[in-house]
């Protein structure tokens, strides 16, 4: 799918210090009935964000207007459970471009990368440091430099390197997706089929 090219982002972050955030929480199943990819951000974290009557829950970080920015910082094992890509779509559609955690579930990580949403893995200690920094100053900014693969806490200049394979990095930087790549491989795939 088409998404914005990713280079460098400097932004405050929204903290979600909860572990094992599964994709059913990110986007509940009853919102998966759409046949187009749009509007999922409205229902991001639906049941954590809204009361039954549709009024916002004031203690949920996304409803607390002191928090803002394009970076979501979450507890370990983010995105576990269902393979629904709608989870990545919802986070992107809401306006996030980066999710930081100490651990991501595999399928979510792949889905995020396929949609221009960068998962940044940091150590548990560094994650704690980010949460503490936001707690001290909600407007503090963080820098995500994809080219250098460095995440920086601007206020303290603490940095950490993050991993991404060079192919996916190239895709994100150029807004490319795997389908173009695979369609271009048509002949190699046909040859593989013939040999097997």
């Amino acid at each position: 799918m088409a998404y914005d090219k990713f280079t460098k982002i400097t932004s405050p972050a929204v903290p979600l210090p909860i572990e094992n955030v599964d994709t059913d929480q990110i986007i509940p199943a009853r919102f998966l009935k759409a046949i187009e990819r749009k509007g999922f951000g409205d229902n991001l974290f639906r049941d954590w964000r809204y009361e039954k009557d549709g009024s916002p829950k004031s203690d949920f970080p996304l409803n607390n207007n002191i928090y803002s920015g394009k970076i979501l910082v979450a507890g370990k094992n983010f995105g576990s459970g269902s393979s629904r890509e709608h989870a990545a779509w919802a986070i992107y559609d809401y306006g996030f471009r980066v999710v930081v955690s100490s651990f991501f579930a595999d399928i979510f990580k792949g889905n995020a990368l396929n949609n221009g949403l960068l998962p940044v893995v940091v150590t548990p200690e560094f994650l704690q440091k980010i949460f503490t920094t936001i707690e001290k100053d909600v407007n503090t900014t963080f820098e995500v430099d994809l080219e250098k693969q460095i995440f920086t806490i601007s206020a303290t200049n603490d940095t950490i390197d993050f991993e991404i394979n060079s192919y996916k990095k190239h895709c994100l930087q150029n807004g490319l997706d795997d389908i173009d790549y695979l369609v271009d491989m048509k002949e190699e795939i046909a040859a593989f089929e013939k040999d097997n």
Partner: protein
Amino acid sequence: MTVKTLFDKIWDAHVVKKVEGGPNVLYIDRHLIHEVTSPVAFLGLKNRGLKVLRPEKTTATPDHNVPTINQHLSVKDELSRHQLEMLKTNCTENGIVHHDLGTEGHGVVHIIGPEMGLTQPGMTIVCGDSHTSTHGAFGAIAFGIGTSEVEMVFASQCIMQPKPKKMKITVNGTLAKGVTAKDIALYIISKISTSGGTGHFIEYTGSAITGLSMEGRMTLCNLSIECGARGGMIAPDEITFEYVKGREFAPKGADWDKAVAKWKELKTDDDAVFDTELIYDAADIEPMITFGTNPGMGIGISKNIPTTEGMEGSDKSSFEKSLQYMGFGAGDKIEGKPVDYVFLGSCTNGRIEDFREFTEFVKGKKKAPNITAWLVPGSKQVENQIRAEGLISILEDAGFQLRQPGCSACLAMNDDKIPAGKYSVSTSNRNFEGRQGPGARTLLASPITAAAAAISGVISDPRK
């Protein structure tokens, strides 16, 4: 010759290309699709002016959204109906076989694949559903994918995947009475947590595993994703071949003999190395039940809910948040806790053997009056077999009714929603907050333990 694991053998044989500094381009033998994760992929394909490259390798059925009563009527929910219609239209336009609601081939996608013999040893199988790991029971590499990847398979019959690490889980010994494949899985997940398998593909071995029926193996492999693994697999053996033989899409005649000879090669070489190895003893496993809001929060049914002793920071707060949602106290005994609903079904436990076990337990007994029970066969074939084997009359005598096939209350996309605050003993795969309906409280267990709850009206040890 290099030594290889079962996983290596199948994976390596399907690599079309290794992208430098990136993933492998992996060829897919079988693609299963359903109504929820395919429409955006079909739309993407259309927008690129492409058609499905190998429609004969894709099979479709609607399952997530479908009602489980009155399937002959038009689906009431407009959005669901629209999604079902889209699947049908997309399949027609692209020449894909579609097993529609009400037809003999209809059912939960992970139940019909094996039933039809579409699932075979040595294959790569994907579906836009994390429980695709089910098919690993046949000695296949099977895993769930996202919608972008569904579009990749449509466009090229390939996906791009980094090769996962390998994990071996051995379970030795004999399972005690009342202990099933579901309990093995919940036991393992309770030991290694919902992230213990992340980045890995599991091979299950050991006498407790090879002693399982194909249905049991499918239940175990199905739940591999719940410990975070991409998938789980079991080397094919006579039990596998016996199950596949004669099914609609299984090889026939001389092709069958050739296939079996090839499938017999599908096992891990003696000296092959795994990244992680775990060993468990079947004798340590009792009927399991979950008490929290992820599948790793499980205990033996005779045990108490853990206390927060030794926990700190976000571990402790996440645990407390979970118990608060469930309305349980740390240290509480799980036996005797109230139950309102019992759900038998899903791609985890919606096969004929699950219905046999449930029926055997409730035979000659009566459903507790406080329990609402939803018995949902995994497929039309399972439903037919429940009737043909006479299970239906035993179930009805005990006060149960059978519904029609679908994913149903496993994820509550249709009308089968557990009301807020109510307790559900469920044979499905996820006890996440709101999974079975907003505010619903889910306790995962085997069909036998679910049957015990349905009869006694509270959480009960089925061995008593």
